[in-house]
């Protein structure tokens, strides 16, 4: 028996009032009411939307799509692929250059919207969502730089950790943890960027493009445009934008490629600068290195604890990644090789069973002698003195480091599949060798390093203001410089986000005649009418 013909009748029998109260019906009515298809995909635009400034929004969207596609292709083969194959390296180049184009277009779009005072007429949330998308994109790019697995990511992570730690954020967002940063880069932040971009675009479609300043009374700015319109093929515009961005990305990738300076290793350090390596290891054992004296989130010391007045968010966040530098960087790794080396086993036993005062006396004595330290072959030479087992320990650590064994011991401290590089990076950063490489590549904080890329490639120029504060007093000289810079940036960032709601400031673009250039044709045509 066929039952289909009865369906309409049955549907008609349903209580229409009850149906209209359903959540699904309400949502459908709300969505189609606020964003009907002709608003979502319009075929006309107000006549004043006649400036090249308007194309940078869609160019930004097109670049975001190319970023997502190139990132997805990189994800297909995994994070090591681009280091090991020319094809992978080329795809990485497309990812880098599409990101550069994305920021290039987004910043111009942002300038344009600022000078248009595009938040007028109840469009404040459109600005807010756009700025949030911009800020989230900076975070996504930053975690991308941290996920490169090369010298640049090593350097950026060890520099950025102080800013993060000073605010307590570092206790939860560990820039030295590759696995954590990688997941933020490929999942969490892109997801947030796409969500905010989508909301931003829908709000543009819902509210419409802001009318030229002075074209309608202020109270009319929020109303739909009722003046002249011009044809507008949104799909054609988006398609052309995508093709342009894709061509530019491929062109830059072929012509310029992308940087990939190999990561520094402890093996390399111990071979190139063995004296610095041994001196650093001695300071770890003595509890005198930066890592040993840092404070939260690594230990309860106070050497690098920062505060604003009486408030220290760093201290409040507490210890989250416990580091005992002597045990983690020296004694622990030596424990893993002592079974085949009786002299080392004896030295470890002697050191570990000595009193804390005795250990401190040995390491302090060796610390005084280490200015006269030399390395011949694989062996240390040092002036005579009462250093107990310390020279034997450091001698063996040097041999272990030069074989690559210390890299493995520190990198695999969490097991075979560990992705957290906090310990090896902290150890590397404690030495002078790592900062000498940073200086060579112009990556030091005093060299505006956070904005730079190795070689002549453009870097994270969008971090210029953050980096700028580090160059001027009191931030450049204060022990609380990081937390001061982060606080200034937090205030400025908040002001940037809520700019449309700040009385006085929100009217500034209306006093700068840049908007007259943007809407020049509209004003000329209106004058001629």
């Amino acid at each position: 028996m066929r039952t289909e013909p009865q369906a309409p009748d049955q549907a008609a029998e349903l209580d229409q009032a009850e149906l209209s109260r359903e959540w699904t019906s309400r949502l459908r009515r709300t969505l189609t009411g606020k964003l009907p298809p002709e608003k979502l995909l319009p075929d006309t635009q107000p006549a004043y939307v006649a400036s090249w400034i308007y194309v940078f929004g869609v160019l930004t969207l097109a670049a975001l799509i190319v970023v997502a596609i190139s990132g997805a292709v990189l994800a297909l083969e995994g994070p090591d692929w681009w280091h090991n194959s020319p094809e992978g390296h080329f795809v990485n180049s497309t990812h880098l250059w599409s990101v550069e184009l994305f920021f290039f277009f987004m910043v111009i779009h942002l300038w344009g919207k600022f000078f248009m005072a595009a938040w007028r007429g109840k469009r404040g949330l459109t600005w807010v969502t756009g700025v949030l998308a911009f800020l989230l994109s900076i975070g996504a790019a930053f975690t991308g730089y941290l996920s490169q697995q090369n010298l640049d990511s090593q350097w950026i992570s060890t520099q950025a950790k102080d800013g993060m730690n000073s605010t307590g954020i570092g206790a939860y967002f560990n820039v030295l943890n590759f696995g954590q940063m990688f997941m933020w880069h490929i999942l969490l932040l892109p997801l947030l960027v796409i969500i905010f971009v989508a909301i931003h675009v829908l709000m543009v479609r819902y509210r419409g493009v802001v009318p030229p300043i002075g074209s309608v009374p202020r109270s009319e700015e929020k109303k739909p445009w009722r003046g002249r319109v011009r044809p507008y093929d949104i799909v054609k515009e988006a398609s052309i934008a995508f093709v342009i961005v894709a061509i530019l990305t491929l062109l830059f990738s072929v012509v310029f490629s992308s940087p990939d300076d190999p990561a520094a290793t402890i093996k390399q350090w111990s071979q190139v600068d063995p004296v610095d390596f041994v001196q650093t290891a001695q300071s770890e054992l003595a509890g005198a290195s930066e890592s040993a004296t840092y404070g939260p989130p690594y230990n309860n010391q106070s050497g690098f604890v920062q505060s604003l007045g009486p408030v220290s968010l760093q201290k409040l966040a507490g210890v989250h990644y416990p580091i005992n530098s002597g045990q983690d960087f020296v004694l622990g790794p030596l424990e893993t090789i002592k079974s085949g080396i009786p002299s080392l086993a004896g030295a470890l036993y002697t050191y570990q069973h000595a009193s804390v005062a005795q250990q401190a006396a040995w390491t302090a004595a060796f610390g005084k002698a280490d200015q006269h330290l030399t390395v011949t072959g694989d062996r240390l030479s040092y002036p005579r003195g009462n250093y107990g087992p310390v020279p034997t320990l450091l001698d063996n650590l040097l041999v272990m480091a030069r074989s690559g064994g210390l890299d493995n011991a520190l990198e695999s401290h969490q097991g075979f599949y560990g992705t957290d590089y906090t310990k090896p990076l902290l150890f590397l950063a404690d030495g002078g060798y790592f900062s000498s490489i940073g200086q060579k590549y112009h990556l030091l904080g005093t060299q505006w390093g956070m904005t730079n890329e190795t070689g002549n490639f453009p870097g994270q120029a969008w971090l210029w203001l953050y980096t700028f504060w580090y160059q001027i007093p009191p931030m450049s000289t204060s022990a609380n410089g990081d937390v001061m810079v982060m606080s200034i940036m937090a205030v400025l960032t908040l002001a940037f986000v809520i700019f449309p709601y700040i009385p006085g400031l929100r009217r500034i673009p209306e006093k700068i005649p840049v908007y007259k250039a943007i809407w020049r044709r509209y004003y000329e045509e209106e004058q001629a009418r």
Partner: protein
Amino acid sequence: MLEVLGLLLGAIVNLKGTAHYFEWGVIQISYANLVVIILMLLVFVLAMAIPFPQHRSGRTNEN
């Protein structure tokens, strides 16, 4: 095969050499970043200066 591909896909312009920096007081900026910023400003100005293609207009939006 991979070597040939590598050559084809390699950089035509070598940006991996010694970096150059513009320094002015506390300001230090790589020429690469400087070029990008100048290009952004230039494109922004050109986007306002170059006339946008004319379209038929005059219809009034009834929405």
